């Protein structure tokens, strides 16, 4: 008989081993799937994990793209992880991401065509405020009316999507766009363009912000009183209450911070890689970031690595589908396997597998 025994302490060894075991398991299971589809499994897996980093034809372009793809995921996931640690569940980062993009873009477009160094910083502030305000709705409702922040934040995503559609068709529509939806493109407006800081590296302000957020979250959780309160509330809510933690303040702080970071991610995306407000601007970073947060075990450094890994599977997956003609659905299934195995193997961190008869305690 196989049984799971709870470990008294999460195993240090398995915390580091699980990601590796999961990746290997994914490669095996995914390889079998690719083989069934009639593709060479070794070539497919090499294309996904190796080519984006080292293929001479693509790597010079796709390596920097890893940062571009990972930055919004990391930025959002860092914000979410603070709340998740304290048991505050912001599921609507996608909506805050959209609102940040709209607020920031609106400020930038309002200045068009003035050129000034002040415009981009103002857009950044507006982006953070946009996300913050959108996250404050579930926050305030929870604090004052005890509504469930999971539902409110999630449903506000759909509201934000409609506002986004309305903005790309109405207020923010490019007046020179011949009636087509979508705003002006920030790539042709230097003062508002979130360009690469060093060309060819993929480093734009959003990537810088993501790194800063990782450091900030690390220091907050490790050294700061507020970080201690967050951890305490998550691990021992009763103790936290007796310990003088103000739950309302904590809720507003966690939702507000995650909202502001999601808003920033939206602003950096709309003014940089995406370039314009359009109906289809959001592609699910806010939801994927939830996975990244848990993949990274709600730890800032873990999130950094998890974000990069997710980005790698996206870009590698694209290459595999392009070069080997693997269907997009198979790539998604492959990504799903990775998450599945990570969570499954994660059991070993907290539980020990034992064989044989149950011992009498």
């Amino acid at each position: 008989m196989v049984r799971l025994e709870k470990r008294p302490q999460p195993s240090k060894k398995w915390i580091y081993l699980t990601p590796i075991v999961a990746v290997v398991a994914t490669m095996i299971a995914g390889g079998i799937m690719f083989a069934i589809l009639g593709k060479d499994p070794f070539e497919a897996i090499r294309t996904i994990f190796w080519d984006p980093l080292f293929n001479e034809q693509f790597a010079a372009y796709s390596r920097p793209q890893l940062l571009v793809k990972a930055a919004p995921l990391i930025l959002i996931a860092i914000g979410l992880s603070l709340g998740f640690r304290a048991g505050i569940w912001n599921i609507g980062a996608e909506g805050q991401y959209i609102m940040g993009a709209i607020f920031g873009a609106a400020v930038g477009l309002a200045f068009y065509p003035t050129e000034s160094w002040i415009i981009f910083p103002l857009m950044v502030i507006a982006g953070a405020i946009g996300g913050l305000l959108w996250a404050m709705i579930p926050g305030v409702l929870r604090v004052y009316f005890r509504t469930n922040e999971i539902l409110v934040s999630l449903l506000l995503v759909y509201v934000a999507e409609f506002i986004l559609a309305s903005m790309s068709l109405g207020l923010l529509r490019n007046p020179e766009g011949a009636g087509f939806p979508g705003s002006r493109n920030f790539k042709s407006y230097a003062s508002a363009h979130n360009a690469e800081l060093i060309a060819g590296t993929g480093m734009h302000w959003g990537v810088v912000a993501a790194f800063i957020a990782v450091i900030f979250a690390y220091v907050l959780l490790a050294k700061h009183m507020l970080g201690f309160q967050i951890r305490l509330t998550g691990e021992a809510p009763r103790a936290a209450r007796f310990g003088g933690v103000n739950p309302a303040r904590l809720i507003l702080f966690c939702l507000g911070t995650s909202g502001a970071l999601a808003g920033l991610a939206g602003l950096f995306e709309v003014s940089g890689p995406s370039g314009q407000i359009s109906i289809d601007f959001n592609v699910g970073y806010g939801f994927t970031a939830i996975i990244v947060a848990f993949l990274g075990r709600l730890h800032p450094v873990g999130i950094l690595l998890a974000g990069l890994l997710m980005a790698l599977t996206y870009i590698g997956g694209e290459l595999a589908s392009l070069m080997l003609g693997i269907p997009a659905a198979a790539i998604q299934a492959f990504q799903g396997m990775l998450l599945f195995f990570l969570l499954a193997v994660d059991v070993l961190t907290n539980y020990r597998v034992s064989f044989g008869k149950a011992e009498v305690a």
Partner: protein
Amino acid sequence: MLRRTLIATAAAAMALTGTAFADGHAKTKVGFVYVGPVGDGGWTYEHDQGRLAVEEAFGDKVETIFQENVPEGADAERVITQMALSGANIIFTTSFGYMDPTNAVAGKFPDVKFEHATGYKREHPNVSTYSARFYEGRAVQGHIAGKMTKTNKIGYIASFPIPEVIRGINAAYIHAKKVNPDVEFNIVWAYTWFDPAKEADAATALIEQGADVILQHTDSTAPQAAAQKAGNVITFGQASDMGEYAPMPRVSSIIDNWAPYYIDRVKAVMDGTWESKDTWDGIAPGMVEIGEISDAVPADVKAEALALKASISDGSYHVFTGPLKKQDGSDWLADGETADDGTLAGMNFYVEGLTGDIPQ
């Protein structure tokens, strides 16, 4: 400018290996970027049929690659760039939202030809745009719909409020109204090109509100299935024939036939005669086809519809011919006047008689 240099170097390296096709030694590599899955049964499916036709036509001389389900945002630019880096000689980007990314990538790969469907921006000499005059097919649909409806209510599943979709609504409405003055259009905006669940919901809602004809400008067959379930509701195949739902509910269809255009353009690349241009073809050259009108349609209606199609095809009739007014009652086209392509390309208003507002 390092990135530009890197890419330019890569592009130059590619050119060395890639341009050999002129003397027949290397294959011409043709790339396609799709917004939906190739199995959507509609828009993307037909583009993929075009891709297969290119393979068929040139055999060993071409190699085609494609990427499906590419979101219309920042990801598109990366996908197109990777396709260019992989050595593609010509890349077809087949959705409106790829417009800016296509032009951005084209600037970095001057030796690769880019063809963007349904857009209007040609910022570089290596970018062409192409689209089909789907509205010509919509006129034929509108005629059949106006004749066939018993409740006088026609449901319309629209995707995004862009000129192409609005043109289709206007064209269908004008021709339905012509044969049935009591006809009403109920328009639902789905804000998606492909989402079977959403499309089915929209169709069901429209049917519940009394519509017995469903027109769709979305790409899946879900509305067909919903209509079949409801019974006594007719539909039209969109972008593809959707013939598996004939003879009822699907009574006809608009088929996008991209194959001749794709073959033509790939040939031009092979011959070195490719030039940037804007193509907007309709029924006459065969880019828009009307699918078989099924037996569910009475013979006289079918004959009228075919006559309408013939008159559009031979140029004796223009779908937008005055007198026509805009929704707000202001004059648009005088008696006998026909709409110019510029107005049609940027159409952002309803014609008189349509109710509701175009979303803003």
